[in-house]
């Protein structure tokens, strides 16, 4: 298969000047405080909290160079400790905690915790490819959604996919023809109001948003950055509407991307130009503050939505390569998990005071 030649298009874009993340240091650590992670080597990839005394984090522990064990950690209000081991090779990427005995994780497959043990959801074999889930959400009535992609041989040919849980079984959802791409995140506001988002593998790559109205999934127009690859990595229903965050790349460093559904349409929101400041999570705290957190490698970025300015503003970020972020219900606190910026796969768990 011949490679696509898009050199001329992207050459001009590489000349765009990018900002350095120097301003990050002037913000300091801010309110972020590390808590000891009970894992010496490995990765903490997702976190979710029920309240100030109850939270879970998942990832894997490297017990040797030859063995990685997927694990679930639990916060008891004072310390983190390992609560369980997930099924082998599950490599969890996201977690949804409904109660202490009703937890879903997705990674390589979908797993469920009933308070005593983990089970693996059976999705069968799809002729369109191997199912790799990326995001999940549920509503109090018990309905749950998992989004991701079906990968035949390569991500270059992957197609978005949604599965719905009705309380007893998972069912593949009929999507409109959105071409190749991936759904990375889902948020369910009600049984008949669910958003899923990711990216469409066009040239350049564009944001992708689909909506469930209780009867069918339809694609909804969403903004992308002109002349740049754009993607959405997270969704959240918070103050001011439904939020989507991600990144864009015009040939050099990434920059943050954010958009909002105001009830009528999706519109891009202003973000600061932070080199490699892609956003991975958007959450709101009990005091009504809206946060977006992300970055990659040496760059960590935290933004807060300033309603009066109608834009995202940079704030102190946790000193961690961020994998996952969660708000603590009923409080102003956040958890952020990931790995240290120095050392080799050193897990870090941190929170705002």
């Amino acid at each position: 298969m011949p490679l696509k030649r898009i050199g001329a298009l992207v050459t001009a874009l590489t000349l765009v000047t990018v900002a350095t993340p120097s301003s990050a240091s002037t913000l300091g650590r801010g309110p972020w405080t590390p808590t000891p992670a009970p894992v010496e080597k490995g990765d903490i990839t997702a976190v979710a909290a029920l309240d100030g005394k109850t939270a879970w984090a998942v990832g894997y522990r490297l017990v040797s160079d030859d063995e990685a064990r997927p694990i679930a950690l639990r916060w008891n209000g004072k310390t983190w400790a390992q609560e369980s081991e997930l099924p082998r090779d599950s490599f969890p990427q996201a977690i949804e905690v409904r109660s202490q005995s009703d937890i879903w994780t997705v990674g390589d497959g979908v797993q469920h915790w009933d308070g005593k043990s983990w089970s693996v959801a059976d999705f069968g074999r799809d002729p369109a490819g191997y199912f790799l889930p990326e995001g999940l959400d549920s509503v109090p009535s018990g309905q749950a959604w998992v989004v991701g992609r079906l990968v035949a041989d390569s991500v270059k040919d992957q197609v978005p996919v949604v599965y719905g849980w009705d309380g007893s079984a998972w069912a593949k959802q009929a999507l409109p023809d959105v071409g190749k791409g991936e759904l990375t995140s889902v948020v369910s506001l009600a049984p008949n109001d669910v958003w899923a988002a990711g990216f469409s593998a066009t040239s350049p790559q564009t944001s992708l948003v689909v909506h469930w109205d209780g009867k069918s999934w339809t694609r909804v127009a969403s903004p992308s950055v002109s002349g740049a690859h754009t993607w959405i990595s997270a969704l959240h229903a918070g103050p001011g509407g439904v939020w989507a965050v991600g990144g864009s790349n015009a040939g050099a460093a990434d920059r943050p991307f954010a958009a909002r559904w105001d009830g009528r349409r999706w519109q891009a929101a202003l973000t600061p130009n932070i080199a490699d400041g892609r956003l991975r999570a958007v959450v709101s705290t009990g005091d009504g503050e809206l946060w977006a957190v992300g970055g990659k490698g040496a760059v960590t970025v935290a933004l807060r939505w300033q309603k009066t300015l109608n834009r995202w503003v940079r704030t102190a970020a946790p000193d961690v390569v961020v994998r996952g972020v969660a708000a603590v219900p009923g409080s102003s606190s956040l958890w952020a998990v990931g790995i240290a910026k120095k050392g080799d796969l050193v897990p870090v768990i941190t929170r705002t005071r």
Partner: protein
Amino acid sequence: MPPQEPTSRRAFIKTGALGVTSVAIAAAAGSAEPALAAPRPADAPLPITPSCSGHETPSSVEGPLFKPNSPERTNLVTPAITGVLLALRGVIYDRECKPLPGVLIDFWQCDQNGDYDEHGFSLRGHQLTDSAGAYRLDTIVPRDYWGRWGRRGAHIHVQVQAPNGPVLVTQLYFPDDTQAYGRNFAAHNAGDQFFNRACVVTLGPKQGNRYAGRFDFVIKTTA
């Protein structure tokens, strides 16, 4: 896991002290400035230039993580990228050992934590060889990884294509004594099912946090 294809062993590129060409030296000196003000690993001494044997560079599996439409760039070291810097240089030849200008060469790899960028295009980029058939890639040594995509030793994926020619899909590997991230490259090379000593880059001595590396390709220009 995606299907796995057997590695071709049709060819073997000699590496050694012989065959240093003026073309290769000129190419290694480079010219264009990278677009980003990121650290550049270009000032470490270059390793000895491999010779062109005329034997085609062995192919390997594409793997599941290639994304088309990567940015055109020679420097993949953006502000987020930490790790052991690598200035990789080389020339692309045809099977008569004639340097090939205008060859499309597309690189993709994981980062210092073993993560591929699946949402965006970090550590992904394509370029065209210059009038001397040379490419230059400023990047980092990738880490070995273990995760949803399986378990691999450190490697860089490459696709190479002369204008209107067939696509060579292959992977570049690192010497057993490479020092990066405290990892045992010998053990991970030995345990990698696709590892091919014919596709190991030649590294100069590690200087601080950087290596200079060398790999020349020999490709078919017609199907």
